[in-house]
């Protein structure tokens, strides 16, 4: 395994159901997490809907994969950047999103929030700081 750790950012821009992008992106993240890289996720535009609480897909016949976001901490994916303006434009707040946490091994397994709400300007800086950006 290469010892060079690269920063990967997976950018999620689409609503969770209706297209397969969101679910496939999450699958790629889980598979990619095995490669010991520095992985984070970004949610903007309709992508912020992926993290909303209380999703119910029964009527659609699709699998509700939203609980899987809460497993990301187990895969050492602990940074989920959510764009403030995208939330605002859709009338959403942090309270509308799932409570996603990870256990910090370096801090006696304290549970810490994974969701980081950032401004559009700050999101630009986060992106500029990456080695690899994969957009879904």
């Amino acid at each position, binding site marked *: 395994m290469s010892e060079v750790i690269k920063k990967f950012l997976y950018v999620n821009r689409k609503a969770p159901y209706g297209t397969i992008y969101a679910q496939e992106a999450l699958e790629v993240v889980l*598979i990619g997490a095995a490669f010991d890289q520095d992985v984070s996720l970004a949610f903007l535009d309709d992508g912020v809907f992926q993290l909303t609480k209380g999703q119910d897909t029964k009527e659609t016949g699709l699998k509700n994969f939203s609980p*899987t976001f809460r497993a990301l901490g*187990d*895969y050492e994916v602990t940074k989920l950047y959510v764009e403030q303006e995208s939330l605002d434009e859709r009338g959403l707040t942090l309270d509308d999103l799932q409570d996603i946490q990870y256990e910090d091994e370096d801090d006696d397994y304290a549970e810490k929030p994974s969701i980081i709400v950032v401004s559009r300007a700050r999101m630009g800086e986060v992106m500029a700081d990456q080695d690899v950006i994969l957009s879904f």
Partner: protein
Amino acid sequence: MAYDVNGTTVEHDEEGYITNLSDWSKELADVIADAEEIEMGEEHWAVVNFLRDYYEEYQIAPAVRVLIKSIKKSMGPEVGNNKYMYELFPYGPAKQACKIAGLPKPTGCV
């Protein structure tokens, strides 16, 4: 292809994973374990039950390193280590235990 559980048939794919996750029962687990040549002991069941709980909560079967890390936390390092887990499930703790637990093949399993 199908397993036979007391006269009831349960469909599975070419690798032995059951097709309909709701078909699972403890009796079926024993049948699948038999086919895998595994004799289910207390620790096998602990792993299988852990996997089912994990799937129920997160809608995925965990990758093997996540499984072992979690078992180490819940059952201690004597059980939660690579060597012991491979003794319990020689063809891979995630792959084989998921099959017995009636779950899909773990995501990221190659």
